[in-house]
């Protein structure tokens, strides 16, 4: 069947009342949690994953898709009105969006972000539907050695290619890889690094690690900071609607942002923020009003927001077709699939086609719902921004522990006569780890990706070596693998070269745009 037929069937499935309700619940929860300052999409998805445990796989994944897109929409509201981006992909939005809000043009800024996200989400989700079958076809030719090379490439791009220190990025990745060894080895059934603790035999839960690093670590970092920023929530004054000139200036930026964001998300090239930086740079170059940049130019909100959402849909291409997560959010989504025993990859398209296509279709539906939910109801979401910090973070930790207990509530630890939940102890320990990582400038996402992708890459490596009877030559035997290794080497060496050449180079500019 062709893509249209499959997508149509997916739409029929997604339009069932029950699935529509799951999607609505997902986008509402996703927006509400995503709007909260300090919570990005990765944490939104990690916090809400356990909520979906008891649903059937299709319903759960549909709700999940809604949460994912909802979290993206919510994040942009926060960065426009509060200037504290909850996620790195919103940094650029905060740049111009917050300036617009300060000038009393918060309404149009939110509107161009929401409509831009909608258009980008729509185009990118359709692109996902049409690109995915091609990638699946290509992926069927991949052997274990090629998969291993692909994962090595992903490791390099998520840890070393961007950010301000390759050393700290790779170290974060290896911490994740090390945590990934813990537990029963899938192929031989032997326990590794479990120290005789039964709870460690199942390995470290991805959601627990993500919630600990993002929620507990962030809470500790903010509470302990002595220079607490004075944050003010900007009221949405004046009309929410965009003027004719706003529309004229926005729509080319939306389209450009979409076409910049989607391919970057679809390549194993790391997070969504790269696309937003490129889009911002492109808009600044092409704008007829370059003097407005830095003072609240609407293109500077429209383009990056579209790029942000387009690359969010783009990351689903490697995730669904190859089982390759390229962002922390995608890593948690992969964990969401795994809880139902589903392993994304070419076989998922073959064996669970209805599920995949109803997921893609429900992304389209979630996108429509979000547009409706966000434009008229924006005042409601803005009110969530005014929650005072003590209550906000107390609430975040309440939900963090709720999710952890929901995933594994067994009271298997014991301190004297008191039984306790081992999973909560892990949450606390990794929360402190997250705080230390943040304090010393280590990125968080590579840890999460290392944890989930480490065991998968080991599996492919051992499969490849088993085929070759132990000859490591097989790893560089196929042209696909060699090409991937060359790209990985370029991704590692080019930034290194830029860093050596001095601080004026591209990467540093990406970092300095943040202040």
């Amino acid at each position, binding site marked *: 069947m062709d893509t249209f037929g499959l997508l149509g069937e997916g739409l029929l499935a997604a339009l069932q009342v029950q699935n529509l309700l799951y999607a609505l619940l997902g986008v509402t929860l996703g927006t509400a949690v995503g709007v909260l300052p300090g919570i990005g999409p990765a944490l939104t998805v990690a916090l809400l994953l356990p909520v979906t445990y008891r649903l059937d796989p299709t319903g759960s994944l549909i709700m999940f898709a809604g949460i994912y897109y909802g979290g993206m929409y919510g994040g942009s509201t926060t960065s426009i009105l509060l200037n504290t981006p909850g996620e790195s992909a919103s940094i650029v939005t905060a740049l111009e969006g917050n300036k617009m809000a300060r000038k009393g043009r918060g309404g149009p800024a939110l509107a161009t972000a929401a409509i831009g996200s909608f258009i980008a989400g729509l185009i990118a989700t359709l692109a996902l539907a049409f690109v995915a079958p091609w990638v699946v076809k290509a992926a069927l030719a991949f052997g274990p050695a090629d998969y291993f090379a692909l994962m090595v490439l992903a490791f390099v791009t998520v840890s070393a290619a961007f950010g301000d220190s390759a*050393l700290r990025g790779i170290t974060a990745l*290896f911490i994740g890889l090390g945590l990934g060894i813990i537990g029963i080895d899938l192929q031989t059934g032997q326990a590794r690094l479990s120290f005789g603790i039964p709870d460690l035999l199942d390995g470290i839960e991805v959601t627990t690690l993500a919630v600990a690093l993002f929620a507990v670590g962030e809470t500790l970092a903010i509470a302990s900071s002595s220079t607490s920023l004075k944050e003010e929530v900007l009221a949405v004054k004046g009309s929410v609607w965009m003027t004719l000139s706003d529309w004229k200036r926005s729509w080319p930026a939306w389209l450009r942002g979409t076409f910049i964001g989607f391919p970057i998300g679809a390549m194993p090239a790391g997070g969504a923020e790269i696309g937003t930086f490129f889009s911002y740079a492109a808009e600044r170059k092409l704008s007829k009003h370059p003097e407005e940049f830095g003072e609240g130019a609407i293109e500077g909100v429209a383009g990056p927001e579209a790029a942000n959402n387009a690359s969010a849909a783009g990351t689903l291409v490697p995730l669904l077709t190859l089982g390759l997560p390229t962002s922390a959010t995608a890593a948690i989504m992969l964990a969401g699939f795994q809880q139902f025993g589903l392993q994304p990859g070419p076989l998922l398209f073959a064996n669970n086609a209805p599920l995949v296509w109803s997921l893609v279709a429900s992304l389209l539906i979630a996108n429509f719902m979000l547009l409706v939910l966000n434009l008229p109801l924006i005042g409601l979401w803005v009110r969530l921004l005014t929650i005072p910090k003590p209550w906000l973070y107390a609430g975040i930790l309440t939900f963090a522990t709720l999710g952890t207990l929901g995933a594994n509530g067994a009271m298997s630890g014991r301190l004297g006569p008191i039984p306790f939940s081992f999973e909560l102890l892990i949450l606390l320990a990794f929360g402190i780890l997250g705080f230390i990582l943040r304090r010393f400038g280590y990125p968080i996402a590579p840890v999460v990706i290392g944890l989930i992708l480490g065991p998968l890459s080991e599996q492919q490596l051992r499969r490849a*070596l088993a085929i070759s009877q132990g000859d490591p030559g097989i790893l560089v035997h196929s042209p696909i693998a060699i090409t991937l290794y060359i790209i990985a080497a370029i991704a590692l060496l080019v930034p290194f070269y830029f860093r050596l050449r001095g601080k004026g180079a591209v990467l540093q500019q990406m970092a300095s745009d943040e202040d």
Partner: protein
Amino acid sequence: MSLGEPNLSRRPDGAAFVIALVLAAIAAVIIWQTSLMRVPPIQAKVGPTVFPYVIAAGLLVLSFATAISAFRGQFPVREKINYGPIAWIVGGLLAQLLLISWAGFSIGTAVLFGFVAKGFGRGPLWLSVPIGFVLAFAIWFIFSRGLQLSLPTGPIERLVP
């Protein structure tokens, strides 16, 4: 996120040396534990010990590089820590951990809620803990009754049919 302005003083960074040591220690633990595994000879070539050794080797290299980086003072400048709030938050998580199995989700989480709010400077506890209790009880009801999540029950949760 505080992205790195490099440490201008460029003095060796003691805390970062500790990180290098910890990385080396983790590598040592991985090597030690992996060497204790008994691997049947048939798996010797591509068995379950290969990957741990590779990661341990990587961690050793990274530990060395971190030590050099620490010596050159290349880590971002850190601001002073307030230990008070950290103690409240970690204390809250520990209190919840120890309370929740016998006192139930609502009471344990109420204490966590109150302690975290206190860590952010909002008190008094006799007010914030009850607020946390109401919230936690509502959450418990919605999630354990509505979404069938298995959450720990205590004397108060058992009152609900």
